[in-house]
């Protein structure tokens, strides 16, 4: 298990498991962290990396297994306890407090005190020192965090971790928003810290970074650590192979006939779509009966693209066409009406998709009220009929229509979201990672439903963080990187290897097909 153990491990994880509902996020994981080394953790989205570090940083508790620090067993009940033990974490979702200043944030877990009050002069000195150590002394300690751009916030986050004077430093995608200049600075800092004897755990999707920085690598897949090896001893394509594995556990329905009727314009098309610096020059077309996937690493603009098409964003440049005619959609209310008939299935069903305390019936009929109402009066019988149809079509498992949605399982909640929109008979369906946190059985039902909708003529855009799904469900896949479409895959080109390689923006030795 252990890589070349030069010195005794600082931290060990033995047989650690963690479940979220029915989903196994981490299963029997082992990890050994050695001082004076940079240890890279690799894996697909959802391979268990984030759960691993959350356990290590005291954010969540493991269900099974034990953790040893300096050979002694430890349990962390909170991030504060982990920090006190010398484990500092730079989180992917930022842990900065937006309304406080940079200096306030850097010393937040243990501000310097004089006579019981926070000593602002000492605080400022500490913050300045930490910023300097992180190579970010261009940031003013008094600036409010919420006024800083994302890349500066990430540097503050790193400075904040360093201010704890940790023995083990965890960086979770800490460079994802940084500029190239910042990355070089951070790398220099990390190398210096390593030479000072810090143990560094580095999680990143960027293979080049790992090749440049890491001493040891561990690959995670489906919640297990599958291999640990010295950096540089495996090729990029071998590593990608390890990340995918060979398990194909999902069952996908057969794909439809590829080409739509010739001569007919695509149902939905956008040309040179742009929004601030987060979406750039995105063009795509979806025909009748087609399922087009959006791939790539998380947060590369996929969600924003769907929001832009659905009329949520202001100041979108470029043009959107529906049935070949220019469509100026300026709000979700407009998007869902004829002639557009769009539906957006959001990723966060709890806040954007459902009203949790309300019943299944109420949630369902909201979206379709104007379809069952005549002159403002709801036709009860028609409503009943429509809801019954949907519950049967989607096989929603509920104790009744008058049960609050909150009482349903995650998978069934997601079905209610889908049903809610399907009642309006949409022609354009935008799905934002709809299967996240759903059990495999329900996933399969959703895949079949998706295909059936396509067969009845809907145009579907399907964003997923699960590469398996993109391979199994989509006729074409557009891979996004940094707000641009960097690759389009069609037919047999859609496989995990190509998806991961293009998502990471590295060549993988496979013949590049001209886009």
């Amino acid at each position: 298990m252990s890589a070349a153990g030069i010195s005794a491990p600082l931290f060990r994880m033995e047989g650690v498991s963690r479940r979220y509902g029915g989903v196994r996020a981490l299963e029997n994981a082992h990890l050994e962290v050695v001082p004076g080394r940079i240890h890279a953790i690799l894996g697909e989205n959802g391979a268990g990396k984030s759960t691993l570090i959350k356990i290590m940083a005291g954010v969540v508790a493991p269900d099974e297994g034990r953790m040893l620090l300096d050979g002694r067993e430890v349990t962390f009940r909170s991030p504060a306890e982990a920090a006190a033990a010398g484990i500092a974490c730079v989180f992917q979702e930022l842990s900065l407090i937006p309304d406080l200043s940079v200096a306030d944030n850097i010393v937040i877990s243990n501000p310097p005190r004089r006579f019981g009050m926070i000593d602002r002069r000492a605080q400022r000195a500490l913050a300045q020192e930490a910023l300097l150590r992180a190579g970010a002394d261009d940031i003013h300690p008094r600036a409010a965090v919420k006024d800083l751009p994302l890349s500066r916030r990430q540097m503050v986050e790193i400075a904040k971790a360093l201010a704890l004077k940790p023995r083990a430093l965890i960086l979770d995608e800490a460079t994802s928003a940084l500029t190239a200049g910042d990355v070089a600075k951070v790398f220099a800092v990390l190398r210096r810290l390593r030479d000072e004897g810090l143990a560094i755990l580095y999680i990143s999707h960027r293979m080049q970074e790992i090749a440049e920085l890491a001493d040891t690598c561990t690959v995670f897949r489906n919640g297990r650590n599958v291999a640990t090896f010295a950096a540089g001893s495996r090729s990029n394509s071998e590593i990608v192979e390890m990340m995918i594995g060979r398990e194909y556990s999902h069952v996908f329905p057969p794909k439809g006939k590829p080409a739509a009727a010739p001569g007919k314009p695509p149902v939905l098309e956008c040309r040179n779509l742009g929004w601030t610096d987060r979406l750039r020059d995105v063009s795509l077309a979806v025909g009748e009966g087609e399922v087009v996937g959006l791939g790539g690493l998380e947060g590369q603009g996929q969600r924003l693209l769907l929001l832009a098409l659905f009329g949520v964003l202001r100041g979108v440049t470029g043009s959107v066409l529906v049935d070949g005619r220019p469509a100026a959609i300026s709000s979700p209310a407009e998007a869902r009406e004829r002639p557009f008939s769009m539906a957006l299935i959001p990723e966060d069903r709890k806040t954007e998709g459902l009203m949790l305390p309300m019943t299944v019936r109420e949630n369902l009929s909201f979206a379709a009220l104007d379809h069952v109402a005549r002159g403002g009066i709801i036709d009860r019988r028609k409503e009943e009929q429509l809801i019954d149809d949907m519950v049967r079509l989607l096989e929603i498992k509920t104790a009744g229509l008058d049960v609050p949605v909150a009482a349903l399982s995650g998978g069934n909640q997601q079905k209610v979201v889908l049903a809610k929109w399907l009642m309006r008979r949409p022609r354009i369906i935008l799905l934002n990672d709809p299967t996240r946190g759903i059990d495999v059985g329900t996933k399969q039902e959703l895949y079949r439903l998706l295909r059936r909708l396509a067969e009845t003529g809907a145009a579907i855009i399907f964003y997923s963080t699960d590469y398996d799904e993109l391979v199994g469900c989509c006729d074409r896949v557009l891979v996004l990187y940094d707000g641009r479409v960097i690759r389009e895959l069609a037919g047999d080109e859609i496989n995990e290897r190509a998806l991961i390689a293009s998502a990471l923006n590295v060549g993988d030795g496979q013949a590049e097909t001209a886009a």
Partner: protein
Amino acid sequence: MNEWRYWLGEQRGTLTGLAIFLAMFAVYVANHPAGFTANVVHTAANKGVLLAFVAMAQALVVITAGIDLSVGMIFVLTNCLASWIVVGAALPTALGAAAVLVVGALCGALNGLLVIYGRLQPIVATIATGAIYFGLALLLRPYPGGSVNEALADALTGRFFGVIPSSLVALAAVVLVVWLPFRRSVIGRAAYAAGSSEQAAFMSGVPIRRGKFMAYLLGGLLAGMGGLFLTFFTYTGEAAYASGSAYTLWSIAAVVLGGVSLYGGRGSAVGAIFGAFAARTTGDMLFAFDVDPLWQPLLQGIVLMIAVSIGSLALLRVRNRLDWFQ
């Protein structure tokens, strides 16, 4: 020079509150028949200081992203209590005043416990406790009455050196003794952090619960000070439901005017004080203009609406419409 800019950024809400107040007060004084005299200032200070205490109390809770709908009732309850026990010679009076403040703090602490450990929504928890506090006030004073140590009352509502209203001096002392230490302590910072982003605060190991609890407790204490001053002004105690409700609602308007964000994490109790004086001046201004009393509530509402709108201008610049709801 850079420092100066950051300082402005930090104090923007408070300074906006101050500016609104000064503008209104200038208009008021300019149109007052007597003009800018010690008497006019004294009356305005004494009227404003009550709402200022209650608004400070509200500000502490709002900073934690909560809301306290019982502040007005704590104010009424402590008034009724003070009209019984803040009497007699120096020592009993002092003990009585201390007891009044302790009761105020306990009321705030109960709110805090319900919200933090009972996991109740602040809005419903404080509606319930507000009703309880009013009920207690009614039992203490079924009919208006009672008395207070008049020497103390006159000292705290009179003037220093014939010009400075002593109620303002007391208010400033409270800012120095209660607010500034809170603001500059670890607990106070925890309250701000919890209000700004509870999740990030948790991830950073901030003592969220202690911070919130202290905010509610000190809120009760400040509302109790307001109740004590009310007794000093009126020499009696009265369980006035309408007055308690009005103070609660105006305290919310005052914190918004004073630049305290209802989403939590931003603003200061000093801003709330300016907001309270500004809110008070809206009423007085109409008096100075000799407006028909029948029109006053309507016009006062319009002035308030305009003042509060100034704070919402930022929403016009949002580019992702989902940000409106965050």
